[in-house]
């Protein structure tokens, strides 16, 4: 049996707005009874429209937010337990959306060292970890550069290296590619997948780009603070209508296959890649002949 890395149990979180006297003015339930589990070594993606609560979940896992009700466990440590705060943040690193706003130092290698410095790692060990982390994200050539001169994708990889240097068991990425160009997005996603496969780091990817979800082991769809769908990418993307109901899109090829099916072409459900599409389409064509399609 695999070991559980992250677990939330009936997690509820409410944003409470107070007026000047401190009376409750408005309560906004951002998370409503969210229970999810991520196993060690898994690559899980959380999908959701803006305001679906997906980032709020991420902040709970890193103990940046505390649950209103329910509980969050990282490596079986309760995030509400002050005693484990630093252990939790060490084992569940977090990468944020804006690459500029999470790089602290003016030199790449010093930024990677920031995390280990905070937890009191000895100097020689810091150098070793910086070296390893920069190699893992393929940024060794830039170690003495200023972050300001890097591209968005490179900055985001430096940020990931900064997390890796703390030797986490798990990395939570909160829309890491939302501010990047297509090249940067590809770079970052490739890095994340490599970390998952080669270093065995558990990944929790929060995104609203469908294409990034295809290669995940499991997808969780959130809407209005609730988990509404869960399953493999294929299971999820087979339900095009349901996804559209949550204001989410499907990958382009999936959409094309779906539309063809609606028009009467017998395409299978849950096509995720161009290769699958061409294979299925050729099969359909061979079976029913040129004229019918």
């Amino acid at each position, binding site marked *: 049996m695999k070991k559980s890395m992250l677990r939330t149990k009936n997690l509820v979180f409410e944003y409470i707005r107070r007026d000047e006297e401190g009376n409750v003015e408005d309560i906004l339930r951002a998370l409503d009874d969210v229970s999810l589990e991520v196993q060690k070594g898994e690559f899980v993606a959380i999908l959701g429209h803006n305001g679906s609560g997906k980032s709020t979940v991420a902040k709970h896992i890193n103990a*940046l937010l505390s649950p209103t009700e329910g509980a969050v466990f990282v490596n079986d440590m309760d995030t509400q337990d002050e005693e484990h705060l630093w252990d939790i943040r060490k084992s569940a690193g977090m990468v*944020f959306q804006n690459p500029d*706003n*999470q790089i*602290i*130092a003016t*030199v790449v290698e010093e930024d990677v*060292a920031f995390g280990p410095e*905070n937890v009191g790692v000895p100097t020689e060990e810091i150098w070793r970890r*910086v070296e390893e982390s920069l190699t893992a994200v393929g940024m060794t050539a830039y170690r003495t550069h200023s972050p300001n001169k890097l591209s968005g994708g490179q900055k985001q990889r430096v940020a990931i290296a900064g997390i890796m240097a703390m030797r986490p068991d798990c990395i939570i990425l909160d829309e890491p590619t939302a501010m990047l160009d297509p090249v940067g997005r590809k770079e970052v996603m490739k890095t994340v997948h490599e970390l998952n496969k080669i270093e065995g780091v558990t990944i929790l990817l929060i995104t609203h780009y469908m294409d990034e979800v295809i290669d995940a082991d499991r997808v969780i769809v959130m809407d209005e603070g609730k988990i509404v769908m869960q399953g493999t990418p294929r299971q999820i993307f087979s339900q095009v209508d349901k996804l559209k109901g949550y204001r989410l899109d499907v990958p382009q090829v999936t959409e094309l296959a779906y539309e063809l099916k609606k028009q009467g072409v017998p395409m299978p459900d849950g096509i995720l890649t161009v290769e699958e599409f061409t294979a299925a389409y050729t099969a359909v064509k061979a079976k029913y002949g040129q004229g019918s399609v």
Partner: protein
Amino acid sequence: MIRDITIGQYYPVDSPIHRLDPRVKLAGTMLFLVSLFAFSGYLGYVIAAVFVGIVIKISKVPFRYIVRGLKPVLILLLFTLLFNVFLTREGKELFSWGIIHIYDQGLIIAGLMAVRLILLVIGTSLMTFTTTPNQLTDGLEKGLRGLKKIKVPVHEIAMMMSIALRFIPILIEETDKIMKAQQARGADFESGKLLQRAKALVPLLVPLVVSAFRRANDLALAMEARCYHGGDGRTKMKPLKYKKRDAVAYLILFGYVGLVIGSGFLF
């Protein structure tokens, strides 16, 4: 283009002065400033000037570079010169016309004041020429560690300085972006009188401040997520360690200070 702005005026060459521990350079600059006002007599000026000259030579920073650094203080220099020349009423009167009286002592004091100021500016800029802002913050943090006992938040100040250094170029870029966005919608930053131009900056500053706060909030979250919890128990990737050359530099410094102060008693 705006990306290329460098903060501080670090001159990147490799010299014995560059390699010194930043604490030595900080202490050296302080001592030098004090020494400039500690001596009396002409010999002090000569010693101070020679000392600065030698340091410039060792630092490999081109002299014209240093002279260029004097430009911003030119006006201040001129003011002190004029005040000293016109307001000193000592010694022999050399020239008098209406309310203007010039005395020989005035000229001498003005001249010496100018030399002192120039030496002072060169002395401090030598430090910034040979030390990166990062080293400076590191040096300040470690050098002033003792102040922690009287509750001066030394680590926090140093952290703030280094974050400021990191974000200045980002905010400059952002200013540029906002300016262009507003110019595209007809904002005018370049014409009009001073007051008008200052007023035109208000719509620029508001979004800039708002965005700076947002960035600060993001950064604080990111720092917390990376286990930042103040200076206690923190280790360093590049800790400052005194080397032999730093001890030599300290010795030379004290020698210089002794000489300058001593010169006043000799003559």
